[in-house]
């Protein structure tokens, strides 16, 4: 139990996917303008991460390894991920059309979010079990949500800050991301 908790904390905080491993930067910068949207994006990504972690684990152990086709890992994983992104998209469209509009292109782009493929590959590399994979996936998702919501909170305040003109927009956002990553490095020490 303690081991699982540590795994969760490692995935979400100390080895945060976005700020420590620099995966999934695209939505991290793209959908972090407002806290509510960022939070929803975090939830959607978390859902895809948990389900993908579990299902890729199943696919790996039940299909790829017994058939001896581990070399098709990437293709199989991407198939799983894109299917679940499609599912999430259908779900969000049904449940919350405004959110569907707010997320826009970034919703289908979860498919190409490297954090998710990275997650699946890390699970395979580390040789995690079924429960461990699920917890690791949840941790990664929560970590992504924390990072993106923090970023959105900071950017909301930056709107009113006196940012030097050349740094307005993307530069200050990247600087903030760097400083956040530094802070997270401190947590890992």
């Amino acid at each position, binding site marked *: 139990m303690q081991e699982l908790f540590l795994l969760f904390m490692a995935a979400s905080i100390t080895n945060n996917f976005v700020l420590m491993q620099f995966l999934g930067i695209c939505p991290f910068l793209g959908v972090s303008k407002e806290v509510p949207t960022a939070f929803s994006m975090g939830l959607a990504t978390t859902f895809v991460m948990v389900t993908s972690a579990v299902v890729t684990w199943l696919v790996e152990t039940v299909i790829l390894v017994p058939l001896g086709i581990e070399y098709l890992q990437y293709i199989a994983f991407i198939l799983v991920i894109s299917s679940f992104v*499609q599912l999430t998209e259908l779900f969000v*469209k049904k449940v919350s059309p405004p959110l569907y509009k707010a997320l826009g292109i970034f919703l289908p782009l979860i498919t190409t979010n490297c954090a998710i493929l990275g997650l699946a590959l890390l699970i395979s590399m580390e040789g995690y079990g079924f429960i461990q994979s699920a917890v690791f996936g949840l941790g990664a998702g929560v970590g992504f949500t924390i990072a993106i919501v923090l970023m959105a909170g900071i950017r909301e305040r930056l709107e009113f800050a006196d940012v030097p003109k050349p740094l307005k927009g993307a530069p200050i956002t990247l600087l903030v991301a760097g400083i956040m990553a530094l802070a997270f490095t401190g947590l890992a020490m």
Partner: protein
Amino acid sequence: MEIISFASAVAGLGILGIIFGTGLAYASVKFAVEEDPKKIEIDEALPGANCGACGFAGCSSYAEAVAKGEEGIDSCPVGGEELIEKIADIMGVAASSSDEKKTAKVLCQGGNQETFNKAEYQGVPSCQAASMVDNFKSCQYGCLGFGDCAAVCDFDAIVMNDNGLPEIDPDKCAECGVCVTECPRSLIEIVSSNEDVITNCKSALKGKEVKVVCEKGCFGCTICAKKCPVDAIEMEDNLPVVDTEGCIGCGVCVKNCPTDAFVEVDF
């Protein structure tokens, strides 16, 4: 050995594909976004030409607005009375019928017989193209006669007659206004049956200048304005403009017009 690994690769990914495909197919039915059944019915009743005359992006978006109650049921000019009744049935409201009919009308009588060509045009046979070059027709305001309007009409309401002028069938015309914008000389207007008389000429020239270039053109004699018993006609750019509110439809102007440029609305 190679065949086996090949087969297992195909089988493995094939199975995955089938599983996820079925799952997604199921989900797309389960999570299908339900649309207002009224919207679907209205959408089916609408003509489906997506002409945009209602002011919406297409029939479907108009149907949605009607179903939500944001838009009146009579905004589709194409469907006419019949459609309004259908939508009224679907929405459960009473159709407010009006006797007003509208149609597009070509406001030019200068065909091949009435006018002449002062130069020969050998370019692309379209009004848009011909209007780019200097005027070849005697009347610089008149119909160029290449039938751009007839070509652009979605409802086959416009045919070019023997005299080289477009004729619009009021029954077929859906007053969508496509021809109005298409005509490079702005000769087509949507006229209402509420109007009694219209000026069938667009020439801003005066007197002899008109007489020379067209037999039926209005040359701004102002007889109609003077004879009108209720003073509903005013001259503007050498053309009579009828005040629809004031006009009593007596027809004095039409009878007295020396060139037949004034006509009664008769549809």
